[in-house]
């Protein structure tokens, strides 16, 4: 699954410009996470049409790119996220970032790890998690 990442300088109105361009092009934001380092921010989003989003943002002078991430669905119950992180850490996998995805009754997270293929495989083998397909997420 592709995540849209936009590098934004810490200036008033930059986020507004990004969301405006997306809205003008009929691109829906499924979920997002905005991290800040003081001088610049990383806006990470799952959107309905990631490739088109990179193009229109690029035309507007933004530095936008696609990154592979995984969307994991887990039962909405206490301890589940703990299980997920323990499983990964026990296997020496580093979680680079994670943010929540609203998927109805169940809980879901978007996750980027030091080894995406391996973490996906581990989570599926554990039997308590499922991986959401890209088209499923894009159309949420």
């Amino acid at each position, binding site marked *: 699954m592709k*995540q849209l*990442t936009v*590098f*934004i*300088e810490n200036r008033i109105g930059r986020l507004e410009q990004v969301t405006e361009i997306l809205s003008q092009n009929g691109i829906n934001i499924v979920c997002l996470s905005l*991290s800040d*380092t003081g*001088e*610049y921010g*990383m806006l*990470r989003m799952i959107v309905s049409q990631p490739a088109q989003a990179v193009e229109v943002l690029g035309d507007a*002078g*933004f*530095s936008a*790119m696609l*990154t592979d991430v995984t969307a994991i669905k887990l039962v909405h119950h206490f301890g589940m996220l703990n299980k997920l992180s323990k499983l990964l850490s026990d296997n020496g996998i580093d979680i*680079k970032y994670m943010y929540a995805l609203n998927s109805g009754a169940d809980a879901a997270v978007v996750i*980027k790890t030091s080894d995406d293929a391996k973490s996906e495989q581990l989570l599926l083998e554990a039997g308590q998690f499922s991986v959401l397909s890209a088209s499923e997420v894009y159309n949420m």
Partner: protein
Amino acid sequence: MIWAKEETLSREEIERIQTERLVKLVHYVYDNVEPYRKKMDDAGIKPDDIKTLDDLKRLPFTTKQDFRDNYPFGLFAVDKSKLARIHASSGTTGKPTVVGYTKKDLETWAECVARLAVAGGAQADDVCQICFGYGMFTGALGLHKGLERVGACIIPSSTGNTEKQIMYMKDYGSTLLVATPSYALRIGEVATQLGLNPRTDLGLRTALVGSELMTEPMREEMKKLYGDKLCVTQNYGMSELMGPGISGECTELCGMHINEDHFICEIIDPETGEVLPAGEKGELVVTCLTKEALPLIRYRTRDITKIFYEPCKCGRTTARMDILDGRTDDMLKIRGVNVFPSQIEEVLLRTEEIGPHYEIIVDRKDHSDILTIKVELAPDKMTDDVAELEKIKAKLKSSLRTMLGLDAKIVLESPHTLKRFEGKAKRVTDNRKGLT
């Protein structure tokens, strides 16, 4: 190829010509330029006191202030009716600096530029696109007339409209580009954005750059854009002295050959005014030996360089000056350390994760100077990984500390967001001006 026999004279022969011309010059200015007569009288020097090259250092300096005090024509040695052309410098501070040429001066100018253009790689069959602003600025017409003298074909495309510049370059087959180094880079960058490959779609062989400092990494950057075969040479000039035509690199790229039969260059300590020995770095001072309209004695250029006399592999025997190290008035004093923007630029251009454009900002907070450098990430180095970006910042910071002995704050910007310049770049903002 060497254009003129004056470029290969023996040291004795060059000095004989310089001495003869200097002696004549001193009488000429004393008789024809009131401010010079007054300066010499004030210093108690008579024209007959100047007999050798060594006597030159006894003469007073000429400065930018003399141009201001005698605006517009007070330093001219001929009547206005004898002038064939007038140029002026941009005059960012107050009145512009006005310079004039007689018919003979224009001939000398074209000859001086022709020599340097040929030394820098120009050939008679070149198609030369001149991307300097035409108008009062000396750069464009100076190169124009010099390259015409070489026998080349000129495209006077001037500045602006970069996409059109690229169209001329491609459709008319430009082989030689005249531009500031930053604009030469900008053209290549825009061409790439337009989907062209400057290496194969454009036929540039030579770039004659000038009018702003070019550092070595900038030359490398240009070769990366346009291909390794591109011959990039820079030349030096200044409106007050003549325009382009003072000195220029040959294709051996080991300093800029000075047109010594027309200019005497000295290096002085900018603080004391003392002449420094050959090879030492200091402020360049130039005496224009042959100009009829605007002869100048010991003009303080405020440019920092050094001069050396070893013969060059290219066969020319003229003295060479080093690539400029900055200007005495560009020098920033930050927390007591002398910093030239060119030093910062060198570090930035060596760092492949960032692009060639930058801005330098100096502020003062709580009585301490803060140096901030804004840089752009190279488009292909953009990453989603914050740790990676922080690593780039840390690396830059540490290279700058090594170069300057100072800590700088690095601000990363996304590609293509910093200001681009078509003429001289203005990349330094000193917000301390007016503060004490």
